[in-house]
């Protein structure tokens, strides 16, 4: 596995393990995690991407998630027509 991919996976695990505390700090917001640190947060995803670019961080390399305590049901069949 590449180092970038390992780091990305570790950041995903970090966010998952700290989800409760991060949800309290960033409720109903998008956050970006890089090297196990929140490097940006924003109300919507587009603004998050802009903030990351302003900081010189490649958005495509950062783990991003929306932190919400609201339960959302995902049902995702995807059929090519």
């Amino acid at each position, binding site marked *: 596995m590449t180092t970038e991919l390992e780091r990305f996976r570790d950041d995903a695990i970090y966010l998952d393990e700290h989800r409760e505390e991060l949800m309290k700090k960033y409720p109903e917001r998008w956050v970006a995690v890089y090297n196990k640190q929140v490097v940006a947060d924003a109300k919507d995803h587009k603004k998050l991407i802009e903030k990351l670019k302003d900081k010189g961080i490649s958005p*495509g390399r950062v783990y991003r998630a929306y932190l919400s305590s609201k339960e959302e049901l995902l*049902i*995702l069949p995807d059929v090519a*027509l």
Partner: protein
Amino acid sequence: MIRGRMLGLSGRRRPYVSGEIAIPFLSVEGNVDLLVDTGADTTLLAPNDAQALGIDVSRLQQGTRTRGVGGDTPTASVQAMPILDNSTFSLTLRILAPRDRSQQQALSSIPSLLGRDILSQFALFFEERTNKVLLLDPQEADALNLS
């Protein structure tokens, strides 16, 4: 073997696999978390991930529409090389291309999907109790001697 893990709030944890996706035509590379979706015909990039990777879907060939619970959505398609753990694939990646702002909004929380174009090459083992999400190679699956 490709290893994933369960992520999310307690009681609603979902199986994900982290990947690196390269799109040579656009000179784009980046990381994406893919939700394992055995109901998805193909692997699919969500609008937010496309945005993060800097993909301009208007430069891409129009793909087939997709049908989901929320209705039909246009897609763009492009040749891509996803890397999952140490396995590299070559496939036509479809990217959701919402037709307007309201559809973009509706799809904003949709994750990218790991579909059966990749999953069909493996045996899928997932167990929430132990947080295990494994894609087993044919030899590994045969060694289980399940039949």
